[in-house]
């Protein structure tokens, strides 16, 4: 069962980078960078989304693949910080 956070994060990425609302287009554990869904600029936009829309500040040292490089990783990171 997907958490509300996971759904929110996935919707943002689907809408802005894959231009679809078809959830099957992006697996929850797929690497956003390896699949070429976002580039370095896109990752910065995701960080801005986390800070502005999800209300969690991302410190510099937290900007690592383990926290940000898939829907599940982002959702887990944000819920830890909330």
């Amino acid at each position: 069962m997907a958490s509300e956070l996971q759904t929110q994060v996935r919707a943002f990425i689907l809408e802005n980078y894959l231009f679809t609302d078809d959830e099957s287009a992006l697996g929850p554990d797929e690497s956003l960078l390896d699949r070429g869904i976002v580039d370095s600029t896109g990752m910065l936009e995701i960080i801005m989304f986390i800070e502005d829309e999800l209300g969690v500040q991302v410190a510099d040292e937290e900007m690592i693949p383990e926290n940000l490089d898939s829907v599940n990783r982002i959702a887990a990171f944000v819920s830890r910080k909330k």
Partner: protein
Amino acid sequence: MQQSVARSFLDSVERHRSSNALITIERAWTYEELGRLTGAVSSFLGSTKLERGDRVAIILPNCPEYVAVFYGIHLAGCVVVALNTQEPAPVLARLLEHCGARVLFVDDKLRELPQLRELTSNGDLRVIPVSEDSGEWSEIVSGSLPNFRRHVVDSRSSDLAAIIYTSGTTGSPKGVMLSQTNLFANTQSILNYLPISWVDKCFNVLAFYYSFGNSILHTHMTAGACLILQNHVAFPHAVLKRMESEKATSFYGVPTTFALLFGRDRLRDANLSALRYIAQAGGPMSVAQQQQLAEDLPGTEIYVMYGQTEATARLSYLEPAHLVDKAGSVGKAIPGVTLRVGSSDESKHTAESPGEVYAFGDNIMSGYWNDSMASSEVLRDGWLRTGDLGYFDNDGFLFLTGRSSDMIKTGANRVSPAEIEDVIARLDGVAEVGVYAIDDAILGQAVAAAIVTEPGVELDIQDIQRQCLAGLSSFKVPKSIKFVESLPKTSSGKLKRHVLVKDYEEREQSE
């Protein structure tokens, strides 16, 4: 024996055998190892039925295999066509067909590979996936010979060495043809003014398949220096840590790279004391951003540079000493290059009335592949029309004020609006479309589109963007799409893009 960048690389292999040529995330590669792999590729190509001048394509990210394949192709007497790894399969297939590639070395993890294989299955293109698990590649690698020089085909200076595709209309891709002389001459000119030597460890984030990254590759391999390969800056903190721990001595970027990596005051806590110089090209960086860099990196020299693919890479540079008193200038022509503004009297061009910048030298391309019409539009008596507007100040420093052509610069990418218009115009329900550039804080410029729909048709923005993604790389998909009743045009029917830009800005302000 002719001079060439591949020949210079072989000299470095002999001189710096045990020095590091490349450092990847996994490990370091010595010049000897890289030389052996290069020899293996060239011997393999020599054993096939390829003829001198045949095109061999590369679709690989920056990695040791890219470098070995590049020089291996040259040593076998063939022409390198390195394509953008971000392009979708239909675009890649079209470019491979356009240049008549006979062999393709491709990243076996490329997302588009299955579709690309399908699209190219009818031709006689030999596709070689590059991976440890690929039988063919393993066989090539295991064929590495200690004495590969005897397999080398001697190139002539006028031989075509590389084709670099830049964005054009989809009907006619623009392949910039660079000769062995072009590559060699521009590499030597750059080594004349940049302090690159064999002790350098350059931290490289720029793709080798673009002309800027291509010039970094050849200058460093010629100088016997080391390139630290970093393929993205998505996690800037971690990237800066790597730069620190590797004790990088130099760094190159486009304005977006600097904004992404050095933003958020990150440099305050970083220890980049080994960094001797940084160099910027690929579009204008604001004077404020330059000055911020100079403050944040007190012991580091800053080179502002200017160039374009049609000139192999570099045309001019501003000496670090003039960063303040000539702020905003792209400096003077590099050795071996002559620059001129306007077609006759240069002195009449000022900040108020700039003229077009022309360039001359051994680095200027011979033309666009199979497109004499487009070639003759930009090449006149050996001079290159750059499409950039500018003027010289009283001390002979060049200032650029804008472009006379419509090209959009987004991040490190040069994008032709016509290419995007071609794709959108073919979508169902679209009557007309105009593509233009809007300001973007990180990218410099972003792509925007104004669309006139067919009568009675309603289109969804997301649908259009998704359909674009099938035929365009993601950086070309418009970030902003507006529906309009009609497009602004001149009396002869030419689209007035500047009006679209003005309308967009006015709308943004009123919202």
